[in-house]
């Protein structure tokens, strides 16, 4: 059942450019790039138990890396993607060494501070980042060295889709591996894991770097479509949107996070212009509504299915606020 649904969703995603206008394909590219950021954050927050309010930092670093490469070195998209992934991971590796020693709300605060400092850096370092104006005039991507620039929205969408599928599959593999199980153990009871002989610092540090890599890759894909990057792309609002996507999708459920990302981007970019540009207001209302109405996110809000009596929609919340132990 699950496989059929996943296959149908993938098939539908693959034929999208043949069915819809280029505007819609562009919008779906944005959704996919943002979904990769949300997937990484879900691995970190939902499975690793480390909710970050600073994931816009590696996302933005990846975006700037791809943009600078495109302007000065290479327009080959996979190379940009690799470099941005490495840049996102490198940033996370640098700050994570200190950050993952903290937990819970404290971690939330520190990641927020790191997000802010990177935002400030993008704002101030005008020689490289173009300051508040950002970097415009980024050349279109090419898929292979010496290839033709990709100008069709549909082809660009296919590239973004392929990249997100590869990275997403990697994240799913990580979440299902022994490492993923260790992470869940650390999330649920770090003391017990420690007494079982695990060194809990290393898995936390590793998942922080993996989430940073995913965010960096998402940033590169974001720039591949937008061909523009500014400090707003790594602002607090992006971090907040990513966390919102994870929360309304259902913490710990990777497909839920992808769905949450779609909802957040659609609300933010499609709905709010029609409401007079009050994006933050709409986002805030969605936040408040999601916290009260969707405590387990989409993934935890199940319809009653006759063959699986274990699921109770609206059942009592788990103690200690831990949800979403399903793998994907």
């Amino acid at each position: 059942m699950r496989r059929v649904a996943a296959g149908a969703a993938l098939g539908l995603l693959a034929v999208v450019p043949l069915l819809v206008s280029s505007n819609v394909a562009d919008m779906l590219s944005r959704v996919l790039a943002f979904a990769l950021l949300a997937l990484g954050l879900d691995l970190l927050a939902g499975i690793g138990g480390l909710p970050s309010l600073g994931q816009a930092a590696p996302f933005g670093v990846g975006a700037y890396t791809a943009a600078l490469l495109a302007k000065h070195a290479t327009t080959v998209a996979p190379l940009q993607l690799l470099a941005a992934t490495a840049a996102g991971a490198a940033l996370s590796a640098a700050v994570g060494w200190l950050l993952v020693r903290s937990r819970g709300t404290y971690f939330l605060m520190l990641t927020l501070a790191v997000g802010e400092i990177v935002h400030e850096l993008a704002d101030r370092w005008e020689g490289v980042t173009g300051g508040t104006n950002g970097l415009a005039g980024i050349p279109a991507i090419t898929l292979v060295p010496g290839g033709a620039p990709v100008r069709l929205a549909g082809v660009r969408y296919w590239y973004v889709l392929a990249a997100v599928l590869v990275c997403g599959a990697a994240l799913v593999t990580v979440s299902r591996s022994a490492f993923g199980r260790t992470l869940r153990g650390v999330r649920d009871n770090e003391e017990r894991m420690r007494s079982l002989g695990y060194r809990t610092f290393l898995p936390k540090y590793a998942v922080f770097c993996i989430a940073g890599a995913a965010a960096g890759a998402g940033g590169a894909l974001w720039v591949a479509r937008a061909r523009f990057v500014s400090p707003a792309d790594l602002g607090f609002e992006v971090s907040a949107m990513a966390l919102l996507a994870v929360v309304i999708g259902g913490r710990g459920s990777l497909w839920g996070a992808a769905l949450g990302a779609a909802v957040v981007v659609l609300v933010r970019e499609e709905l709010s212009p029609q409401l007079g540009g009050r994006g933050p207001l709409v986002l805030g209302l969605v936040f408040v509504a999601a916290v009260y109405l969707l405590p387990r996110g989409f993934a935890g809000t199940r319809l009653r299915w006759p063959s699986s009596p274990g699921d109770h929609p609206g059942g009592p919340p788990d103690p200690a606020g831990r949800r979403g132990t399903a793998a994907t």
Partner: protein
Amino acid sequence: MTAVLGDNLVTIVDGVAFGVLLFTIAVGLSLVFGIMDVLNLAHGALYLVGAYLADQFAGDGQAGIGGFLVAGLAATVVGAAAGAGLAVMTRPLARRGHLDQALLTLGVALIVGDLLSARFGNDVQSVPPPRFLAGSVSLAGRDYPSYRLAVIVAGLLLAVIVYLLVERSRVGALVRATVADAPMVRAMGVDTGRLVMAVFAFGVMLACLGGVLGAPVLGAYPGLDERVLILGLVVVVLGGLGSVGGAFLGAMVIGQVEVLGVSLLPQYASFLVFGTMALVLLARPAGILGRAGKLG
């Protein structure tokens, strides 16, 4: 020699003025976090509400001290009501963990920030100080805005009041006991729910008052809420959670670092602030006056 002294003295006094403003933000954040483990991300937005209240009642510069008193009164009422409201809103989420509560306040922060920019626009509103404080006084041979000295006096007064309330009063003792061991306080028959609401209201009220006090110094503009929230968080992390003295110490340190940084190395001011935080965290992970037990 006196010129160097004068320059530095002015910067240091500026830092103290900025520090006491930061204290009004940080102490509320710190107490709310300490007593109920809620990271109130709407704190900066409520500071901004206070700043816009000052703009509303004293923005034209004609109202004199009266405008500021009205704004301060409004900030007290609005801040206390908002704090109590936030306490009520976060309570049903208490069983679901800290992240949900933080997310709720984040949503509230986005809503309040956007409503403020819809009402007051996106420009920087500068608020003139009350007329009798609009001049400057001589400080080591330099002219220094007298309003900033008034901010220091008012801020220190607030700090003393908060200190006496939290560290020397019966209610304060209950608050500190709740920070240390809430189930035990409940077992002794104290209604911690009401206590929590009072602390939340008091903390948010202080942030709102800080906004009124700081409006002639920092102005009021969209984005200021984030800036003061982040600096407040840095102060709290630096000083240690749930400690009034820590919040004061942290605010003084960050006030100096920020103002000195802006005057000496404007490009790197924020790096100095966060660098200071990183250094303190490396040396003392629980903050200068914090206890390691609150880290989890």
